């Protein structure tokens, strides 16, 4: 292994490759910041450039762009509540409130530290355990994925504020309902398309999240005129916008969160059917539970832990998804699918033999992950104060920009004007719901997990000839479901106990 690391280091540390890392991180960060463009688009953009380079330089460039884009994506979630990719939705839950409180610089710094730690720790796991974990990742069947989605959904309570549980559940159901629009996977039947051709492929995640998060946020800001007191408070807040100071106590709080979230993120990322989004939700839900009632209540209102957990987990999961890619040649996510395409373009076929046949490729990918993460941190920390100042742009300029970029981001993916109409209607509905204190996060959670949950459940039922017995007969499934039950019931029981004592 030491020999491998040395091979990787000697490949990665040449001047060309370091330039690639630098360029990749910069370009990636910039692309990732644009709402609607995520790591996947960033990597795809790099393919023509990478194709003209030699394999290891090309891969290093793509890995750097990848990490840059993940970091950039968190930026738009935190600053303008516009998570361009599903895996940064959970980042916006506490990142955006922090930014609103005038702590944008700090929030970005925490995100950067967490991403960095998640990526680096997960790369160590990858190094040690990749070959053996590959086969573990294959032990997950549809029934287990179904159980995993249930566990993820049981985290919904984490997104509900006090007294809001019913509203959160209602919004989850709305999300589940929206996820059923389109051609049904199992039967090929159209559901809730009302004969509209444009709904045949369902509602895209990007459209929904841009409409209900970024667009509705901008519309709300226009609807609620600011009082003079607001303005004063804002001016006060903006003075410290760029400050990145994280207190010692906060570092102490973050450290264990980062440790736990890296592990959970990496393990979930290794599963080809799960991915960074579920990892970030699970880490967020878990930390909220572990934080206890007082600190847990701060989640969603700018909690340091609540920001750190999903940021660590999604980066660790992104690294974890390289396990099935490199060792089995199976892409678990859209991003790794593009990576696979690029690798094949170089004549490199990832699979069990990659490790043996082309060790330099294998090791330089892993080493480039470390270098990418380090350079990213060095590069971005000095930029944070400037990036954070985006929020100092006056509303009458910033808000139209946000609206413009949200609409254009969605349109440029589908090139279908129908999507813009749909988006506006969703945004209006979201504004009304938010004025009535309905939370949007559970809806997105229901939307993302609902589709996967339904798909896996129905697939499992098909395979098992419509028998439900797999729910208790398969130990892995039963175990995860039991965990979900504990997660749901434990807070209720603990609360009852506490009340009795009091």
């Amino acid at each position: 292994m030491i020999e491998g690391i040395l091979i990787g280091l000697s490949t990665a540390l040449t001047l060309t490759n370091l330039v690639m890392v630098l360029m990749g991180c910069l370009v990636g960060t910039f692309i990732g910041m644009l709402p609607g463009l995520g790591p996947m688009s960033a990597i795809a953009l790099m393919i023509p450039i990478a194709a003209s380079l030699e394999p290891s330089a090309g891969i290093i460039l793509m890995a750097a762009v990848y990490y840059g884009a993940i970091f950039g994506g968190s930026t738009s979630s935190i600053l303008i509540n516009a998570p361009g990719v599903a895996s940064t939705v959970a980042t916006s839950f506490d990142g955006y409130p922090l930014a609103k409180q005038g702590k944008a610089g700090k929030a970005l710094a925490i995100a950067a530290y967490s991403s960095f730690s998640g990526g680096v720790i997960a790369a160590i796991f990858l190094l040690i355990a990749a070959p053996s974990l590959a086969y573990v990742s294959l032990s997950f069947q549809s029934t287990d994925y179904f159980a995993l989605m249930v566990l993820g959904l049981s985290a919904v309570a984490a997104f509900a504020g006090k007294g809001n549980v019913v509203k959160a559940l209602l919004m989850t159901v709305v999300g589940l309902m929206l996820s059923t629009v389109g051609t049904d996977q199992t039967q090929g039947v159209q559901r809730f398309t009302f004969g509209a051709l444009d709904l045949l492929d369902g509602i895209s995640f990007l459209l929904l999240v841009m409409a209900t998060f970024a667009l509705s946020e901008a519309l709300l800001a226009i609807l609620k005129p600011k009082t003079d007191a607001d303005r004063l408070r804002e001016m006060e807040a903006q003075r410290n916008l760029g400050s990145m100071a994280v207190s010692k106590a906060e570092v102490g709080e973050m450290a264990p969160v980062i440790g736990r979230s890296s592990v959970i993120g990496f393990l979930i990322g290794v599963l080809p059917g799960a991915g960074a989004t579920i990892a970030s939700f699970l880490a967020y839900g878990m930390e909220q539970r572990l934080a206890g009632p007082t600190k847990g209540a701060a989640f969603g209102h700018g909690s340091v832990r609540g920001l750190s957990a999903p940021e660590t987990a999604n980066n660790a999961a992104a690294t974890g998804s390289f396990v099935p890619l490199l060792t089995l040649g199976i892409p678990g996510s859209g991003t790794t699918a593009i990576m696979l395409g690029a690798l094949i373009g170089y004549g490199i076929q990832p699979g069990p033999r990659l490790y043996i046949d082309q060790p330099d490729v294998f090791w330089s990918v892993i080493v480039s992950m470390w270098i990418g993460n380090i350079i990213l941190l060095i590069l971005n920390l000095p930029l944070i104060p400037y990036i954070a100042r985006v929020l100092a742009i006056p509303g009458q300029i910033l808000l139209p920009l946000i609206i413009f970029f949200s609409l254009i981001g969605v349109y440029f993916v589908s090139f279908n004007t129908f999507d813009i109409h749909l988006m506006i209607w969703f945004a209006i509905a979201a504004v009304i719901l938010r004025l009535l204190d309905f939370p949007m996060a559970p809806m997105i959670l229901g939307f993302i997990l609902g589709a996967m949950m339904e798909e896996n459940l129905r697939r499992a039922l098909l395979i098992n000839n419509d028998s439900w017995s797999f729910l208790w007969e398969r130990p892995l499934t039963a175990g995860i479901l039991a965990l979900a039950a504990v997660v749901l019931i434990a807070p209720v029981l603990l609360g009852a106990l506490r009340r009795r004592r009091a």
Partner: protein
Amino acid sequence: MRYAPRLRSVALAAAAALTIAAGMARADGQQVVERIHFLIPGGAGGGWDGTARGAGEALTKSGLVGKATFENMSGGGGGKAIAHLIEVGDPGTLMVNSTPIVIRSLQRVFPQNFRDLTLVAGIIGDYAALVSNAGSEIKAFADLHAAYNADPRAVAIGGGSVAGGMDHLVAALVMKGVGANPTEVKYIPYDAGGKAMAGLLSGEIRALSTGFSEAVDLASQGLVNILCVTAAERLAEFPDYPTCKESGSDAEFVNWRGFFATPGLPAETRAKYIEAFEKMYDTPEWETVRARNGWVNIFKPGDDFGTFLEHQEQQIGDLMRELGFL
């Protein structure tokens, strides 16, 4: 909910646009068509997009076509672009499409079918294959057939398309070829080829219906067995993999991609397009694009394309009726 393929598309579009721009510099005396406007019925980044932009790249770089422009128009499973092609009637526009145009017009997703358009040429294809987990007891197609005969309900065959979609039809077609009742073939849909492959390796399904190009590399690494390929003869590049025909099933299937023009296109214009594509196959520029994407050349120009499509429509239509999807 399908955000993954859509997201990556923007970028691929931009990427491809870059390549095209770079390729426009050269144009020597062999220009056949002045310019082609490619209409792509899906968002950027998918198979249609790759085909149009890949062909455009080879045609312009080799100088066969002076200038290529591209327009993405998604919606209605391709129906929107078909309607647009007919309505505008521009002879300079070519629309890319593939096997789904046949399937979707049978399903009446859109009212038109390929007969409403001018058929230019089918240019590339990918054969389908049935594969099994290398660790399973199913080593050859005969094993799968035997397991199916023992209990059809215990033989789950997966694929990366919806029920009634291409992978399902291929699985049904191959099993029908050995006398099975296609409605009894237990098809398990996954939302992407990669996930279906993971499902096969997890052992939850017994076999997988997939594109040959997606399976061949994993087979060479010993992860999966290729049970049979839906080509008429063994592929020259991969003589080790048996065809479904020699395994006892008469199933033949190719997932083609090709180009269509507006109805009523003058015959000489169509001949020019066909000439450009025919000459394209011999250029190193096309070979680069083809090899990069692992495509198989199948040249079916003009009326041959029509005969081929009619045959495929018959084949798929019969099967879909039998399966109850029509």
